[in-house]
């Protein structure tokens, strides 16, 4: 089947954080950017706003890093998710992720995006299209297939 994932176009991100507000309200029932599965690194002086979210890599380094096999990639949808029952918040996945896409809360809990089951709220709430959810082979700016394939091979 066609697999969908996130595409980031940082040049369009205004840093407003509507995505973070939406995510934390959906997932945590509270406005709290620190517990949003999507984060924005704001480099104010450069005017650069960098959204970080799980890109559902083809060969996710986080899966290889996890010793408890808590992170899995669904063969059908291609989505990478974390099983919080198995996770002990050791943060090895955070170290392994090349995209700073896995979040550590102030209470040291590891959070990973679950794409809201296929209709992510953050995308719905992005006013500029800086974050989009699209077919990974077509995308909006090219394929994500090579996203993190060679991290451990090189």
């Amino acid at each position, binding site marked *: 089947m066609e697999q969908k994932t996130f595409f980031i176009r940082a040049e369009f991100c205004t840093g*407003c954080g509507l995505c973070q507000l939406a995510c934390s309200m959906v997932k945590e*029932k509270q406005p709290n950017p620190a517990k949003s599965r999507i984060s924005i690194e704001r480099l*104010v002086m450069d005017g650069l706003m960098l959204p970080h979210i799980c890109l559902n890599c083809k060969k996710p380094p986080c899966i290889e890093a996890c010793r408890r096999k808590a992170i899995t990639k669904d063969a059908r949808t291609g989505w990478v998710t974390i099983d919080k029952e198995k996770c002990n918040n050791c943060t090895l996945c955070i170290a392994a992720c090349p995209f700073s896409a896995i979040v550590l809360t102030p209470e040291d809990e590891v959070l990973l995006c679950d794409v809201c089951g296929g209709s992510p709220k953050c995308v719905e709430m992005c*006013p500029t299209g800086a974050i989009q959810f699209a077919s990974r082979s077509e995308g909006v700016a090219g394929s994500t297939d090579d996203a993190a394939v060679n991290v451990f091979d090189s």
Partner: protein
Amino acid sequence: MEKVAIIDLSTEQVVCKDIPDELLRMYLGGEGLNTYLLYNHLAPGTDPLSPENPLIFGAGLISGYDVSSSRFEVTSKSVEGEGGFGTSNCGGHWSAELKFAGFQHLVIKGKASRPTYLWIHDGEIEFRDASFLWGHDTYECQELIQDDLGDTQVKIAMIGQAGENLVKFANIMHGLKRAAGRTGMGCIMGSKLLKAIVVRGRQGLKPHDPDKLLELYSNHYRQITSTKIYPVISRYGTLTIFCVANQSGTMSVRNNQANYFEEAEGHLDDEIFEEQYKTKTLACYACPLRCSHRYRINSGPYAGVWGEGPEFYMMAGFGPAVGNADWELILAANTVINRYGLDVGSSSGYIAWLMELWQRGIINEKDTGGLNLEWGNKESILTLLHQMSKNEGLGGMIGQQASKAVKAFGKDAGKYLYVQRGMMHESPQNFRAARATALGEATANRGSDHLKGRCSLEFFGMPPEVLEKIYGKPIASALNSWEGKPWMAAWTQNFTTIIDSLGYCKFATIWPGSTHNLNYSNFCETINAVKGWDVTPEELMETGERIWNLERLFIQRETGALREHDIPPSIYFQPQPLEPLKGEKLDRDEYDRALDEYYEIRGWTREGAPKPQTLARLKLDKEPSNLL
């Protein structure tokens, strides 16, 4: 429970208090609760620059919770003008961050023994040495603080050299352009040797009904992004007002000598800015409107200048008001005032005034220290800004004296200085043709204040049925009719006061002219989902009235100046010289009758003081009540 931190810079002690629910509902937050705190914490008659004058920061009640809820208010006894009510509202990311850090209000008292900055993070407040920041502009200051704390994600409210040097119209700045301007809040911050307040918050907010809030949040997002104003404001920001204002004859040209600036045609407009200078679009917290723009000048005398902004008031203030039609000078001046932390309205207004004095031969090179103040002289404009901030030369004198500078130039000079409550009239626009706006601005509590008094819907010639539906009373469609306008002015003042107390951006509401944007009913939905209250639009309108009246009581207590200061600057009573709107002016008798009607609507005496029964109705008869 929302919290207020009482911070004493002299003793480096902090006391945190929970805000009682009853008080919160009466004053909300932001401007409302700030005013309550000021009225209660300031001893009557305190000198604005003494350590006893509290500097009060307040995030809006729903700041952090909803779309476009990015704003905070800074309130203190004013140091600019007549020493009355000082307050200013600012956007960006600081307000929501303060809420995430666990506080809604900060009351800052005393004076630090050395330059200090406050580091507020997740319920903790630290006093840190700011000696290494003193003397640095706001851009440098931010980078130095990020290095000092090892954190690039902190949110900073700070002063530049203008605040340090006690310029009477110094701003408190946030980011590269966000500003709490007017009434000299940055000057008061500088007088306390407080360089910056740095915030980082990672605590969640706890809405009463999160599911409902999420639903409202999605609805409000769709509501704001489906208005007709949205595509324009999200592309050009307030710059889009410029051509409309100029072509409709409401521009201040050469210190209000004309009302249309022909030289601007083909040189100053929003599209030229977008094509030639804009490099990036940015937004405040949770706001889809994204009205902030980064810019860079690539060639010419200002090559390499970069910054953020500018707003319409910058464009008009350093454009027509000073007789300049060069976009690049406006951008260069914008960077300068933001780095120093100077107010755009006051600094451009005083420069325009000086230039008119030069034109009329009232001042010459002896008075200006050699500066040539011909209209549009770019070098002199920038030099005056540097002088103001550094307290040197003619500009320095203006920065220190503000409206009292008139004494230096003899009595004729005062004829061309358009001030109200000692505040420079916000120079770029001139609303003498627009009756509700003229009255609303002149009766605003900080003086000459379009952010409280501008009745934008007045400008669109809307059908009376639409106006009556919004305002609840008959209002004339015609710009220059007085019918219903005092009510429109009072209604708008209460409305903007509620917006500033809740922390919404005015551009997400019906205020700038889109009737489909957020209104009282939307505010109530959010408040009730967040707090579990049963607030109605009627209650909110009364809350706005309560806050407005407490501000009026403050002015009465501190200055005693009421009716005689509710009059627009003298230029409003002279006819406009150019089409369109040629010949329009305010008639003094008509204005006085409108003022009587306005006072009656407000429940004030003919002298403009709130009547005892009005205070009782608004539960203000026991102030100061010292509940916090």
